[in-house]
């Protein structure tokens, strides 16, 4: 993996939830996103920093 330097802290991953629904998140390591299936949002991770802001999240398509 080339992402090691910017990889998200595993303990941080453990305590993060979706800000809107407070449900657990799916970590998409390849695309560097944290996905909330309940809210239909994908939160980007930039340089190892999850951006848990609803207005900066990507809306999921129906098939995702």
């Amino acid at each position: 993996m080339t992402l090691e330097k910017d990889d998200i802290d595993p303990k941080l991953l453990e305590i993060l939830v979706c800000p809107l629904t407070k449900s657990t998140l799916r970590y998409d390591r390849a695309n560097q996103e944290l996905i909330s299936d309940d809210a239909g949002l994908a939160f980007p991770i930039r340089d190892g920093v999850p951006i848990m802001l609803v207005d900066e999240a990507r809306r999921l398509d129906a098939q995702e």
Partner: protein
Amino acid sequence: MQAAMNENKSLSPFNRSLVKMRRARAAQNMPQAGFLHQEVAARLLERLDDINRSFDTAFALGWDAAEHPLPAEHAFYADLAANRAQAMPGPAVACDEEVLPIAENSLSLLLSNLSLHWVNDLPGTLIQINRALKPDGFFLAAMLGGETLSDLRRALLDAELAICGGVRPRLSPMAEVRDLGGLLQRAGFAMPVADAETIPVSYADPLALMRDLRAMGETNAVHDRQKTMWRRDVLLEACRLYCDRHSNAEGRILAHFQVLFLTGWAPGPNQPRPKQPGSAKARLADALGTKEMQVKGSRRPD
């Protein structure tokens, strides 16, 4: 639609995307303009020091104080602005204080350094913080209070009133220390305490103070604020009033930041609790060595 929007604004006085933009823009001015945040961070850590406790998982909102890392095994940092979060001294997230992305029962300590005074729904945020804490977890926050820069507010108000014959909403509402204890209690915190400290800062003139506020990203973010610049004559009159009223011997002016400190514990099993009324085993009169007297018109408890 317009009516609905207006209603929404009245419930949410602050424009959060504007707060985010200001914080992001201010990042380049830190740490020079961040002296207040640094000072408050140091005072928060001092208070934390007084608590004889070690913390495993800590989370700090709006920390922004690289030389003051958190004393915890796992310390996480957060800011509303992504570029500020990326500059933190440890693992960080960008998050909105109004919708916290933290799982229930996951933190032993949550700190906030001057990040809660722009929150619209403070009771809602406090409830979310309480839920994020483990039982007996500790919450410690500093926020700017209603007495902050009251001299500057007064000078601007007087100048605008004198020159324009009226005033416009330019100044943001802030919390009072007397409201916060009740707010903490309502959010479910045990042993809530709110107190205030005043930090005096001296400036060459009022314009230097206003430049600093802008550099800190702490200018007005109220939805219905007056969006144009101050009129030049109003600004000059306000500066004159301020200097007249608050200059010191060296010709510098003093400004006062009121910082409110909030502390509370998530309810836990071994915390001290008040006893049930009527559960006393001894009489107060005996302890005081006096004779119990009945107040006229009152009923003695059985």
